[in-house]
């Protein structure tokens, strides 16, 4: 029997073997179209030794975390407010409805005009990208608080303010965490896109820059790094969720 530790590795190993066979012995396509696994390893080695990969990963991570934290600071309290007050939610429905479907990358022109090139335009794009999922999940979590829990609190003596802080917010935590998880995924995509056009570092810049130099090996290294970061975030969130979901 194959156990669960081995099973997820099977497919990547198969892909690696096929990739090797097609690019090295058969040599179906030239290396600037698809690099060989060996070229990727060589690029990775070079990027690690020079420290470039590390600085790019750090740069991307800082932007992701900064954008995510800023979005959370505003979206979570706002979500609590909108979820709590039907009038405020009704008031903001229209504006949220229009702003939400705008893809975060559509903000790139303004992010460059307003913030130039560097860290801040990236953070801005990420902010725009993960603000709405966090907001919507928070509103939803607040609104779906079990009525019986609120009533139980009131008969135990909670004030209106305590009802929010001691019951409604804790009961919405799983929904808020789900919002953050969705937010991280979007943030990662936004960062890389933003870095491709408005940055001098980061994994998006690494991919774009390497592709212009026909260094396809480095392109793959950049792509895989993003994938691994996403996977790590996913594992972290799953761990948090398994601790707080009931």
């Amino acid at each position, binding site marked *: 029997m194959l156990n669960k530790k081995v099973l997820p590795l099977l497919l990547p190993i198969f892909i690696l073997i096929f990739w090797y066979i097609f690019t090295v012995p058969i040599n179906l396509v030239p290396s600037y179209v698809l690099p060989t696994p060996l070229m990727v390893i060589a690029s990775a080695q070079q990027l690690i030794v020079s420290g470039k990969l590390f600085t790019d990963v750090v740069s991307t991570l800082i932007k992701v975390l900064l954008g995510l934290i800023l979005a959370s600071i505003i979206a979570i309290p706002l979500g609590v407010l909108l979820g709590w007050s039907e009038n405020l939610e009704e008031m903001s429905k229209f504006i949220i409805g229009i702003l939400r479907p705008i893809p975060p990358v559509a903000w790139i022109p303004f992010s460059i005009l307003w913030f130039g090139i560097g860290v801040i335009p990236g953070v801005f794009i990420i902010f725009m990208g993960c603000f709405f999922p966090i907001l919507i999940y928070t509103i939803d979590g607040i609104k779906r608080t079990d009525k*019986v829990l609120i009533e139980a609190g009131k008969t*135990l003596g909670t004030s209106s303010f305590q009802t929010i802080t001691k019951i409604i917010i804790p009961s919405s935590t799983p929904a808020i965490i789900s919002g953050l998880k969705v937010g991280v995924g979007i943030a990662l995509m936004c960062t890389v896109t933003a870095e491709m056009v408005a940055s001098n570092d980061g994994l998006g810049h690494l991919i774009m820059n390497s592709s212009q130099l026909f260094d396809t090996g480095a392109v793959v290294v950049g792509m895989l790094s993003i994938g691994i970061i996403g996977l790590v975030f996913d594992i972290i969130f799953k761990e948090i969720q398994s601790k707080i979901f009931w």
Partner: protein
Amino acid sequence: MTVEIKNLNKTFKTNEKEVFSLRNVNLKIESKDFVCLLGPSGCGKTTLLRLIAGLEKIDSGEIIKDGELIIGPSKERGFVFQQYSLFPWLNVLDNVTFGLDIGKESKEENIRRAKIYLKSVGLENTENLYPHELSGGMQQRVAIIRSLVNNPEILLMDEPFSALDMQNKHKLQEEMIRIWQKTEKTVIFVTHDVNEAVFLADHIVLMGKNPAHIKEVYNNNLSRPRKRNSEEFINIQDKITKILEN
């Protein structure tokens, strides 16, 4: 302590969304009474209990407790819900101290009190468990303790044992009597189960529907401890069933 209900009228919906109304309800409940509100679905027994709790608004008439109008929920009127109402993000101990913790007392004192109460119903080993790890019967025991530890003047109970199997139900009923005798609380207990009402209550408020109203208050003088298979018990049960069916 007395609760007086005067000329009360209230339109309400049942779970099936049918609309009923309580008409011209008058009732007086004295200190240390164990009162059951008994009747079929749609007779307004739960609505009446929720009105006393202050969880619903009165259409007309008044409910007065010790000379003061009841206008909203308060910790002096503890409530045990039919549905499970423990806070799922708190363990048993934190659930029980919830009402105390929002007050001014010290945390150590609250824990000390909670532990005495938990021990009195044999739940001292569940302190660190979360609600989803408890059986239905245990959850309702904790919910009762959570209300009692707050030292309410009245304990309002809305079919708290209806989801339990017969054996557990009988066990909790016996425990309830023990708690009531020891703490000398006033208890108002809603049920549709004649056997439960005869076992528990001194005064059984028999209610009918269309419109929802009080038929009569039956004074149950059966001595305690009550035996369900005694002739007197069965006679009273039959008598009440007849009045209800009438």
